[in-house]
């Protein structure tokens, strides 16, 4: 194959005018969930766009002349008209999260469009099982809030695992949803002992396995949503398949570690 004369050694053209990336939202509140997790409440200038529970938005800041952004699922429900909440875990040395940790209330940020297919099916009448680790609980907080508004609300079970009790974000919110079963779990025994944790200790897969008989879920009448680290998702998916959930009834979204987040 003969190629045309190529530009590989040619420097890139000089940067053109800004492509119109705008700071289109304002940070309204920053809450410290734990030493490594914060909740950012953001108000878009033009109101919250229509979205489906489970979708994510890119959250970004300007840094060194460029836009630095990462996608985060919102914990807010679509009926929230003014603000969106995001759970962010700090990545040591991460380019974006280091800057997010330095933000003050009132800072202008960039908010992208809602995206993602890991979203709630509003017509699904099956019982809903949500299994999350860490900040993977965020999309489920939104989904549970949406389900809770339905008059024909299906059964809801939320299993949330974290390394330490303080990282069980939205515990009080989820514990207070009428008719929902909330199963929090702490994976690190020493953290559980130190904080006086009296709930389940262990990884979410083993906690789910032990809790299953009490959850009263029909494997053929349940849809499962899994969100968090890939190892958890693989393990829980296998467990649920063994229990008898159809493969198509298990939906998942992995929270991957973007280099230098």
């Amino acid at each position, binding site marked *: *194959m*003969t*190629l*045309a*004369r*190529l*530009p*590989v050694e*040619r420097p*890139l*053209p*000089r*940067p*053109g005018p800004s*492509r119109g990336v705008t700071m289109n939202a304002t940070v309204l509140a920053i809450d410290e969930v734990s030493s490594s997790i914060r909740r950012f409440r953001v108000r878009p200038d033009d109101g919250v766009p229509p979205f489906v529970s489970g979708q*994510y938005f*890119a959250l*970004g800041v300007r840094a060194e002349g*460029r*836009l630095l*952004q*990462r*996608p985060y699922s919102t914990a807010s429900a679509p009926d929230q008209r003014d603000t969106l909440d995001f759970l962010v875990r700090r990545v040591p040395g991460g380019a974006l999260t280091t800057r997010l940790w330095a933000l003050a209330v009132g800072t202008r940020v960039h908010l*992208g*469009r809602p*995206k*993602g297919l890991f979203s709630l099916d509003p017509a699904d009448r099956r019982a809903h099982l949500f299994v999350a680790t860490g900040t993977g609980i965020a999309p489920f907080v939104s989904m549970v809030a949406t389900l809770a508004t339905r008059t024909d609300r299906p059964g809801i079970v939320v299993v949330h695992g974290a390394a330490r009790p303080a990282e069980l974000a939205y515990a009080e919110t989820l514990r207070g949803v009428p008719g929902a079963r909330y199963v929090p779990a702490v994976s690190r025994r020493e953290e559980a002992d130190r904080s006086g944790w009296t709930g389940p200790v262990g990884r979410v897969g083993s906690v789910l396995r032990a809790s299953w008989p009490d959850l009263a879920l029909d494997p053929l009448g349940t849809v499962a949503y899994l969100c968090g680290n890939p190892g958890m998702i693989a393990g829980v998916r296998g467990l649920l398949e063994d229990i008898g959930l159809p493969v198509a009834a298990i939906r998942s979204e992995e929270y*991957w570690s*973007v*280099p230098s987040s």
Partner: protein
Amino acid sequence: MAYVIAAPCVDQNDQSCVAVCPVDCITADPDVDRKFYIDPDVCIDCGACANACPNQAILRTDQLPSEWADYAWVDAAWYRDAAAARSVVNRLVAGAA
């Protein structure tokens, strides 16, 4: 290390990548451009575009075969001088014919 849209995208106009990119870093002017372009300054290396592309046109920069290596320059250049990038795409396509 960004992803790059290479030769298999030319004249396809599929846009699956645009739909899934979480940070909206893929664009083009479909009336003018023969392919789509990833902005390497914005790409977060998630790989969603590569998984979505039905033409297997999207690869990491360090995985590009040598005959497609110049598409890395093309993608970055388009966001600075679209006409120059388009010109090079035409030359690459002509050279590969």
